[in-house]
């Protein structure tokens, strides 16, 4: 499974689907965050 899919669960019905992310959703995927060492 690529990192351009999303699995969507419904906590009430138990339904689960997996679909490809849209181009807009892919653009919003987070990047690795830097932290500051103190």
């Amino acid at each position, binding site marked *: 499974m690529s*990192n351009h899919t999303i699995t969507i669960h419904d906590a*009430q019905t138990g339904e689960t689907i997996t679909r490809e992310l849209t181009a807009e959703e892919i653009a919003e995927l987070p990047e690795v965050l830097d*932290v500051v060492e103190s």
Partner: protein
Amino acid sequence: MAVKTFTSATLSSADTNTYLANAGLVYISEHTLSINTQINNCFTNTYRNYRVIVNIDAHSGGAINTLVRLSSGGTPVGSSGNYYYSGAEQAYSSAGFVTYGNNGTISYWLTGRLNGNTPAQFIMDVLNPQLSTVSTFYKSQYVDQAYSGTVGGMYLANTSFDGFQVLLAGGTSMSGKVYVYGNRTA
């Protein structure tokens, strides 16, 4: 609710309903964790506060982060200016104490930092997600095979949410389980 000392070998239905069914954390649902996971309809008006336990059994990408984004109606909500957090962590090897923060510059909460491709866990408390009259707050405690840390923050707006996303920043795979509990109050 008062502390009950049971003296009978047989529990009555009344005591069971009052003292056992009213336990603090009530199981809501469990889900398979994937690289990008969305859970809908887990925050309802039944409970005000929630606990989310995430067992990351395996992931790729090395030293990367797990993040959470709140959602409503299946759609992620909020942008930079809404999500704030700060945290601290310490490596088991005592290589250094690390602190970090995000003053509303990205559209996610950081919930855990993964040091390598090893199992990891985080336990996240989410406060007020369903209420549209106050901000939503969170606290996450995370551990893996190299270090442990704690991080917390807020969503700066009075917004009602019914779900959330768990995302892996970087990497190509993640597997495990997500458990959601409600904090029963009566």
